[in-house]
């Protein structure tokens, strides 16, 4: 019987459940995150207009660079200010 050594990090596959979805977004705060890709702002401007028409409060955020994960402080700020977040991946 052949025995091999596991080349992976040996982490158990972690199942992360999705966050609970709200039934209605009226009166909620939605964060719009621009990841700093060209024209992502164009997309988010349109979304903001559409959301505000529905009476949704909008907060805008921007990552310093699309090549790196969002800084911890920015993630914390979004988490504390918003109920939902929409990220513009764009190009």
């Amino acid at each position: 019987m052949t025995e091999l050594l596991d080349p992976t990090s040996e982490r158990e596959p972690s199942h992360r459940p999705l966050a609970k979805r709200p039934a209605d977004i009226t009166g909620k705060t939605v964060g719009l995150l621009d990841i700093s890709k060209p024209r992502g702002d164009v997309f988010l401007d349109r979304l903001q207009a559409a959301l505000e028409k529905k009476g949704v409060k909008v907060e805008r955020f921007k990552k310093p660079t699309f090549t790196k994960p969002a800084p911890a402080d920015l993630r914390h700020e979004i988490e504390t200010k918003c109920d939902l977040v929409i990220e513009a991946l764009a190009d």
Partner: protein
Amino acid sequence: MEIPGLEVKREEESLDLSYAFDVETVPTLLRFENGEVVERTVGWNRDIWRKITGVADLGEGLPEHRPGCGSRALDFPKPVDTSHLASRRVTIGSQEDDIEACIARGWSDGLPVVPPTPARVARMLTGTHRDAQEIVAVIPPDLAECTVEKVAVNAVLAGCEPSYMPVVLAAVEAACTDEFNMHGLLATTYFSGPVIVVNGPIAKRIGMNSGVNALGQGNRANSSIGRALQLVIRNVGGGRPGGVDRATLGNPGKLSFCFAEDEANSPWEGLAEEHGVEGDAVTLFCGEGPRGVVDQISRTPESLAKSFAVCLRTVAHPKLVLGFDAMLIVSPEHASRFKEAGWTKQRLRDEIYANLNFPGAELIRGAQGIEEGLPEGFKDATLPKFTPNGLLIVHAGGGAGLFSAIVGGWVAGETGSKPVTRAIT
């Protein structure tokens, strides 16, 4: 073999004692005192054997002297101790092919791999003096701590020899720095992947190719070192195409893009030395596939530098500047133009840069009938193609061919990736 007068108390079926006491010839006679070997003779010599054993009539009737023959221990490699290896053992089914089993478990980049048996991993670890459980780096995207042993397991999969281990370890360390930004390089939709340039005497010692077909196939070290790094990212870091790796097209160099600089014949200092590291070193650059620069006519260094410049302008897009670094790999025949003229590497770089400044009006969106370009605000500026450190120059390739190569980079600088040089220890 029977020796009259010798009483046999215990016979060994295995070769354990031969391995333990380095017995290379049979017969070998060892005399022990308090568990230590105090006397030893190789081959049969009646007088010596009688003296060591103290048996006066030992070997009566046997010839006085016979030289003996080679021990079977020489025919079989000494079994490797694998008890110190900490990686999880995966037992594969008795009907399973071992290579297919590795592929089925997702450990492969698409090509067959060498199954990482404990013995192979233990042998791989003989290639480094570092402790097997030492942490080498934290591997993106999962940010998993990676031990020297895990690097060795993946080096086995990749087809490395133990002597490549120091290079693989240095490459893993360099890739997982904040400056190199392996996470972003993996996740990007762009073509690029890690390109490894090896400098120093180790390149020749482990048989790397810096000459004919240096960027191509056919050399075990070139092909497996880059592959080992990518397998560490895949298996330890969890970075896989279609998962965090979102490349639109990718490039075939993402299997392995690793070569040595031809320092012996270069008119210039090596890449690592330029970055302040002498001796054995790796430099990691985030590169796409190489493209050719053809100039078979230029005889002056000025003309050839201009050829390099017009070709370098096309990196990413001729209208995009300062966003992408590049590596220029100058072949020996092209390099001889600069050598004959006494041009330093910096002189060549300066001449290329002098030919790569553009008026913003040519670069802005809509200019030249092309919507891609810089924002309108750069209209009145004059802009260079590359940042001051954005052009790497390396010497490699076969002796014939008036061709060099350009490897375009990815997002340059603080917001993306910077080349990283690490000493190989």
